[in-house]
């Protein structure tokens, strides 16, 4: 190692005033740059807590403590040459003597960095004091709010900006009824335009937070219903138990004023592009500094200044500070909000595109240059998935597509998202730590092979975290481009993909998890990732009853107990109703069971009946009665065949051209009990009017004059996809053969928990490849796939009927193995003539009866 040793008297003293996020970042950068070889460093913090993450302050109320919010381990400040003075405010600076004055005494400096941050501005309002004058800035402030909230029902935040909404979220998470009072006519007036503010207001109000715009608080007096009364203009008022002021921040420049450094016109310590103040030995960084008259109230510009100053003091090259990008994306009260560049379209000639969705209160605005070639800015409310792409367009001057509106319109297939390969090497991936795509690439070239290594090596995605998804994309794309295999291990116990495990099970005839683990895995127990995945593979291949002792420990709770666990730990029960066809006696039987066990009853989207609220020990009784009435399990709990929906078809309908119900029954009877990587839904429509909605299913069948058209790989749900027309005018036998082959091919090659739609999109060669394999048998697999399916079909047995025959298997269906009682914590209330789980706030209202024997 090549260490330069400086003579002792050459070591100078550097003092950093302020230990917030920016001050801390500066210290980290100084250490990394080798500053401890040149300086002994003293850091003074006014708070008693070392630097913590103010961006995620509200998490202090949802479980995180001060230590977990800390920016670093304490050990960072325990290195020789570095001293941290916490709880020691700096009182004065004596520039002539090069000294700072504190209660602990005077400390001389050679260089001084001011990182004193900002303080919340509280407008002078008569009567504001104590719990009616809280602020939201430090952990201590949050402790005060928590204390005030412990005796409160309602809380008001004055100020509807970014921090104000964070504070409202904090009040809400403390269980208060929260209100926001904003002076401006919209929320987040700096970042959003009118329509964006309106969309955000609608969303926040839907969450139960009161929003009061264009309201000025004039005074605060005693309330009647609540502790305080906020008197607004026009004789309006709002009563509340506490008030948090979040009406903006002011730079903390008191020390600079005292020692007569030059200030910005609206406050803040005036700095040049190298963060130098009017005194050459004093720097100012972060929210206390004003460059060109502006204060930057975000963490990214503060970090940029901190990096610049640290580099100068370590005599390294650095970029000058010429303002900062104030683009930001956040989740406020769970609502996505994004603002990029010229969000208001204020630049000359700017042209805007707007997308408004009043149904979901989503809003997007794209501001482009007069020549239509560049993105100048954007506003997003409701969906930040557009942010990364738009920001890259704006920051890198990437030429716009022919129709710029496509960048903000809801995405159909093939929407122009900007792929990782389209970004230039100079593109900024992480603006908090100024990491470019080029830096990520060189980290990969220097040996970083996983995302965690990239993060710790480049610091990308460790600031606000907003770039995590983009970083992952770039990382995976670059790895692939270098021919490096991305680690696709199932989990720490199997260094194989699901497809590989499937062929091992199949080829080696493995029938238990332990055997597969011994032959191909690590450890002795597996985990909740590999066990259900292997359980599903074993079922797809061999279709043994999942209640067998060797298979039971592999299943998720729903498969273990053959019912769907709901939020209060009770189960719902779904008997199979093939094709949605049911006799009146069948309906009566289900009704009788539901009535007897007081089950909440609802018709499902798959033409069945779901019975909710059964406790574990009730399941065997419920199922004995259902099976007695001729029902089978519906597998609603499994990653398996669910339903085959159908219309009445040619039997009754004047338009029907084929008997869709009969075909639905045939399909459901064939594939019931088939387990697969994800759930499977089917539908059969009797004519092109498509009443069964077959084109939204994994397997959709639509009748034609000449037979059946087969559609594959559709789904509803979170990301709907239309099924694609796969083959036309098939006869019954060919249709079933194709479905056999398709399902087995999917089961053989899909990833764990991958729906057919996503599987289909990941298939190289796409639909044509699928047709070649299934219709033309290009891989020579067709017979094998069909016979594998036939085995599963032949081994079908209703799992519930199987379990009911075996007292050993039923032993598990006891709420308590040593006591016959039901779970006393499961409580219901009546709503619309049925019972539903009691909400936490209702629990206190339910009288508790002691059982009298």
């Amino acid at each position: 190692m090549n260490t330069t040793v400086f003579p002792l008297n050459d070591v100078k003293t550097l003092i950093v005033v302020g230990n917030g996020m920016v001050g801390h970042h500066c210290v980290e950068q100084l250490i990394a740059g080798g500053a401890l070889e040149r300086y002994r460093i003293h850091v003074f913090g006014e708070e008693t807590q070392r630097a913590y993450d103010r961006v995620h302050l509200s998490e202090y109320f949802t479980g995180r403590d001060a230590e977990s919010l800390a920016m670093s381990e304490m050990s960072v400040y325990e290195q020789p040459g570095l001293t941290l003075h916490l709880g020691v405010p700096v009182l004065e600076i004596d520039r002539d003597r090069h000294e700072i004055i504190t209660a602990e005494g005077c400390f001389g400096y050679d260089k001084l960095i001011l990182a004193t941050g900002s303080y919340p501005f509280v407008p002078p309002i008569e009567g504001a004091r104590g719990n009616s004058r809280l602020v939201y800035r430090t952990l201590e402030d949050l402790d005060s709010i928590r204390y005030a909230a412990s005796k409160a029902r309602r809380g008001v935040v004055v100020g509807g900006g970014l921090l104000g909404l964070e504070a409202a979220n904090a009040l809400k998470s403390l269980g208060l009824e929260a209100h926001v009072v904003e002076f401006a006519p919209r929320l987040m007036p700096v970042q959003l335009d009118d329509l964006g503010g309106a969309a955000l207001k609608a969303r926040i109000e839907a969450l139960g937070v009161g929003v009061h715009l264009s309201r000025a608080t004039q005074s605060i007096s005693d309330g009647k219903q609540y502790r305080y009364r906020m008197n607004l203009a026009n004789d309006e008022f709002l009563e509340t138990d506490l008030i948090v002021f979040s009406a903006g921040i002011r730079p903390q420049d008191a020390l600079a004023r005292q020692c007569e450094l030059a200030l910005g016109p609206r406050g803040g310590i005036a700095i040049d592009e190298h963060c130098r103040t009017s005194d050459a030995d004093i720097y100012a960084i972060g929210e206390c500094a004003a460059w060109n008259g502006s204060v930057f109230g975000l963490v990214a510009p503060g970090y940029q200044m901190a990096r610049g100053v640290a580099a100068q003091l370590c005599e390294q090259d650095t970029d000058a500070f010429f303002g900062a990008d104030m683009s930001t994306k956040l989740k406020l009260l769970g609502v996505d909000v994004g603002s990029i560049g010229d969000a208001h379209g204020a630049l000359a000639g700017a042209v805007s595109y707007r997308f408004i969705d009043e149904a979901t209160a989503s809003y997007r605005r794209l501001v482009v240059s007069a020549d239509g070639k560049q993105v100048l800015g954007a506003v997003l409310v409701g969906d930040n998935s557009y942010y990364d792409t738009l920001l890259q367009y704006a920051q890198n001057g990437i030429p716009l597509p022919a129709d710029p509106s496509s960048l903000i319109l809801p995405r159909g297939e093939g929407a122009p998202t900007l792929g990782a390969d389209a970004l230039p090497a100079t593109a900024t991936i992480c603006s908090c730590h100024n990491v470019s795509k080029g830096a990520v690439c060189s980290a990969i070239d220097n040996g970083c092979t996983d995302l965690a290594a990239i993060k710790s090596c480049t610091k990308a995605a460790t600031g606000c975290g907003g770039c995590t998804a983009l970083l992952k994309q770039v990382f995976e794309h670059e790895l692939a481009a270098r021919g490096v295999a991305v680690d696709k291990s199932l989990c720490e116990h199997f260094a194989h993909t699901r497809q590989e495990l499937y062929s091992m099970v199949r080829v080696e005839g493995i029938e238990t998890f332990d055997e597969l683990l011994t032959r191909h895995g690590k450890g002795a127990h597996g985990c909740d990732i590999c066990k259900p995945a292997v359980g599903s593979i074993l079922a797809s291949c061999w279709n043994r009853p999942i209640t067998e002792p060797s298979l039971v420990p592999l299943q998720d709770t729903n498969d273990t107990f053959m019912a769907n666990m709901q939020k209060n730990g009770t189960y719902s029960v779904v008997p199979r109703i093939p094709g949605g066809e049911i006799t009146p006696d069948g309906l009566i039987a289900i009704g009788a069971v539901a009535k007897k066990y007081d089950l909440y009853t609802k018709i499902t989207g798959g033409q069945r009946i779901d019975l909710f609220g059964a406790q574990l020990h009730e399941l065997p009784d419920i199922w004995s009665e259902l099976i007695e009435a001729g029902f089978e399990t519906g597998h609603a709990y499994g990653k398996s065949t669910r339903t085959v929906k159908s219309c009445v078809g040619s039997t009754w309908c004047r338009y029907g051209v084929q008997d869709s119900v009969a075909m639905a029954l045939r399909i459901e009877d064939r594939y019931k009990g088939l387990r697969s990587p994800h759930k499977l839904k089917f539908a059969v429509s009797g004519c092109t009017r498509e009443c069964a909605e077959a084109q939204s299913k994994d397997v959709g069948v639509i009748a034609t004059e000449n037979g059946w058209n087969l559609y594959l790989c559709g789904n509803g749900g979170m990301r709907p996809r239309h099924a694609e027309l796969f083959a036309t005018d098939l006869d019954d036998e060919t249709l079933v053969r194709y479905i056999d082959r398709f399902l087995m091919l999917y089961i053989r090659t899909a990833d764990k928990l991958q729906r057919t739609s996503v599987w289909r999109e990941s298939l190289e060669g796409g639909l044509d490849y699928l047709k070649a394999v299934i219709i033309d048998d290009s891989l020579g697999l067709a017979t094998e796939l069909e016979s594998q399916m036939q085995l599963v079909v032949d081994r079908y047995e209703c799992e519930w009927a199987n379990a009911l025959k075996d007292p050993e298997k039923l032993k598990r269906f006891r709420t308590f193995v040593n006591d016959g009682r039901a779970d006393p914590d499961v409580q219901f209330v009546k709503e619309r003539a049925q019972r539903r789980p009691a909400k936490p706030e209702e629990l206190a209202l339910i009288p508790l009866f002691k059982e009298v024997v």
Partner: protein
Amino acid sequence: MNASQTIIAGNNAPAAAQLHWQPLCGRADLVANSGVVAWLDGAQVALFYLPETAQGEQLFAIDNRDPKSGANVIGRGLIGQIAGELVIASPLYKQHFRLHDGSCIEYPEQRLDVWPVRLKGDLVEIAV
């Protein structure tokens, strides 16, 4: 009775001699490599029984209440091993609790009570 089958789980469990053991349920009530729940004077105890581990036969007793959902469901979770430690995955939100001390991997503020528990002949005994 087979002394080699006596297992004591629970971190920092006091010496066995000081514990007051009481019968909880039968060995036959347990399900291998999975969980069942027993009633203990108002408390709900999830019992996880692993007949074969590197340390031999093991039995764990852990609170049945999932702190995240407030529902009594831990006993119906899936046993697994993460970084060498035996854990139970809550069936509702899938967070993991270490079987030996009830601590949560994902959320340090969530922690489940554990009880010393042992197999004695055909009985499961718990110390309270």
